[in-house]
């Protein structure tokens, strides 16, 4: 099992680290150019190319499939380059947004004729980094090394063109470097979206670049910081998905978002200039205190207004303190509450036992007759409905208990929260 865990994690992690490297570099330029969503737009245009290839009868991985994808990406790169010329009166992001939605809608229209269209669109969005192969990792590593080396060689004019974004009408030279940037960016995005999906690639591009920029104004240092942070977030996402038993792509996206929050916290409270750190700590304490008091106060008010509603904060307090709603029931209600929970568990166990009995009979012993299968189904349905009845009883008794509990828990919570907010407001007004 452990061997499988490591085997399943090794290649996705290698791919994520490689993707983070090239995307951090590109992301830093994207931030300088102020075209954050260019990645999504280009990825969607390349996905449109891949979709057209599939509908035309070519596999995405075939030479024809790749040619379609690169052709569409090149068209996207030209459109993005041209959009800078329009950006004098309107933000370039507006054009990028239009390009994104137009490419998405066109993809939907193209796949509408393909039976597996919905699956194809979903795959382009969420990708499948977990199942990346060694060949794909190697191909991407080689491709990104070549593009990375090219960018390094021409970094000065490339960065000068990026810094000129939003300035005067771009000259011919700048347009040329813009086109080079978007074409190479498109090739990278085309390859990485095929493996990791649009959502994850957006994280690879923007989050490490933001983290790097938080800590250093120098692009080289920002690149290294971003790459290390992105690699850490990738590792946390991939191993976190093992621990949480959740899809890798989604957990990795959340891990990248969390890494940005942590980096923001480190920058604000630990590594910024001393005066700024003191101010941030004070602000952070006040803001955190107010948020906590608001959560408690609103929860207290909510339980007083609607005791039968959902109360996540109250449920957390009940779990932490061991003071559950049954404490506020009459002895008769408590007995019914415990009995209903036990009966519901018993019914569920019987449903599961019958399920296993029927499942085993598919290949073991004598085959069950159609009537026997119908009888099992009927009993399972009856028990499930009876279980629903027990859950209704539990829910009703809990609501009754909460009606009493609200004055012992809800009211004190609201009062404490009110005094907490007043105290914080008073402290904030004191001279520093």
């Amino acid at each position, binding site marked *: 099992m452990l061997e499988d865990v490591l085997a399943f994690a090794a290649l996705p992690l290698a791919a994520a680290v490689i993707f983070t490297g090239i995307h951090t570099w590109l992301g830093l330029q994207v931030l300088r150019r102020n075209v954050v969503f260019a990645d999504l737009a280009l990825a969607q245009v390349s996905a449109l190319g891949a979709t057209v290839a599939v509908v035309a009868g070519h596999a995405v991985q075939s030479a024809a499939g790749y040619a379609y994808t690169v052709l569409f990406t090149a068209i996207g790169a030209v459109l993005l380059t041209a959009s800078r010329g329009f950006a004098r009166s309107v933000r370039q992001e507006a054009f990028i947004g239009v390009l994104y939605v137009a490419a998405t809608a066109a993809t939907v229209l193209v796949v509408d004729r393909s039976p597996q269209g*919905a*699956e194809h669109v979903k795959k382009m969005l969420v990708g*499948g980094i977990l199942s990346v192969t060694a060949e794909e990792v190697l191909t991407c590593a080689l491709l990104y090394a070549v593009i990375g080396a090219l960018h390094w060689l021409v970094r000065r004019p490339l960065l000068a063109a990026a810094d000129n974004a939003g300035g005067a009408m771009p000259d011919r030279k700048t347009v040329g470097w813009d086109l080079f940037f978007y074409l190479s960016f498109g090739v990278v995005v085309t390859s990485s979206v095929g493996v990791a999906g649009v959502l994850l690639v957006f994280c690879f591009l923007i989050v490490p670049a933001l983290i790097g920029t938080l800590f250093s104004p120098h692009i080289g240092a920002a690149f290294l910081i971003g790459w290390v942070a992105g690699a850490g977030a990738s590792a946390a996402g991939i191993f976190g998905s093992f621990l949480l038993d*959740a*899809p*890798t792509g989604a957990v990795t996206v959340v891990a990248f978002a969390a890494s940005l929050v942590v980096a923001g916290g480190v920058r604000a409270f630990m590594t910024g200039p001393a005066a700024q750190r003191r101010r941030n700590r004070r602000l952070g304490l006040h803001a955190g205190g107010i948020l906590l008091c608001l959560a408690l106060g609103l929860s207290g008010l909510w339980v007083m207004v609607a005791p039968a509603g959902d109360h996540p904060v109250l449920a957390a307090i009940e779990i932490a303190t061991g003071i559950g709603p049954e404490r506020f029931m009459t002895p008769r209600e408590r007995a019914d509450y415990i009995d209903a929970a036990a009966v519901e568990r018993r019914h569920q166990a019987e449903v599961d036992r019958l399920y296993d009995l029927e*499942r085993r009979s598919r290949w073991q012993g004598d085959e069950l007759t159609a*009537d026997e299968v119908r009888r099992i189904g009927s009993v399972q349905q009856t028990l*499930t409905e009876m279980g629903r009845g027990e859950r209704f009883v539990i829910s009703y008794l809990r609501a009754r208990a909460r009606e009493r509990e609200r004055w012992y828990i809800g009211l004190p919570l609201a009062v404490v929260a009110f005094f907490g907010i007043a105290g914080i407001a008073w402290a904030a007004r004191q001279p520093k």
Partner: protein
Amino acid sequence: MRVVATTSDLASLARAVTGDLAQVEPIVPPAADPEAFEPRPSDLAKLKGAAVVVRVGLGYDHWLEKLLQKHGDAAVHRGGVGYVDASAGIPLLELKGRSLDATGRDGHAHGLANPHYWLDPANAEVMTGGIAEAVIRVAPELTEKIIANRDEFLTRLKARLAEWERLLAPHRAARLVAYHNTWPYFARRFRLDIVDVIEVKEGVSPSPARLAKLAALIREQKVRVILHEPFEPEDASQLLARRTGAVVLKLAPSVGSLPEATDYLALFDYNVAVLARALSAPSN
């Protein structure tokens, strides 16, 4: 007479029953996933003028309700003379009555039971019975021809079923893993053991922890075949196959989903033949 069926499997059975007496059309295109299907305006046009509408039921083709609501002809609405829920009378599996439970372990986000009951060929008797009754209710003058068509189909089905059972008999209790929980009826008919499914929640890719657990299970239980459908994402199945040496076998879950599955009987001809071949092959 026009008969509209939600899936290509029901359309194939309706053709077997009506022969050349009716024009039969499916709504979901072959090889598309009916559980993820989004109807289009042209599907509404298909329903107009239909004398009989046949559906899978059990929440599988839940989108039909909306189409029927927009359709004016009460005869093909629920309870109408031309309305057929083909699941009526079927011995359903994994029936729990959790119609609103999206967390059920059977991998179906909606439905009262596992809805893939057409994959037990023995259930075709009940399904064709429901279709024949509706057609006869709508056009009583066709009674004799409809009964003759159905009898002729059931005779062919019986002969083929005996042959399919003979082909898979040596592989009784063979252990398999499936991507989606599509095959319990097929497994029951041909005495196969589907030890687990890869996709626990519909449309949500499996977690790496689940894949590691499945890899261990495949080795421990000596599972040699992973059942896969044409419209399912292959990444997870191929990854497991690479790690364990099991073979990914693409079966046709419905008529037209693979070129060989040209009609209801051909669907089983193909599935049984490729499965028997895969299970007979020497292990890796």
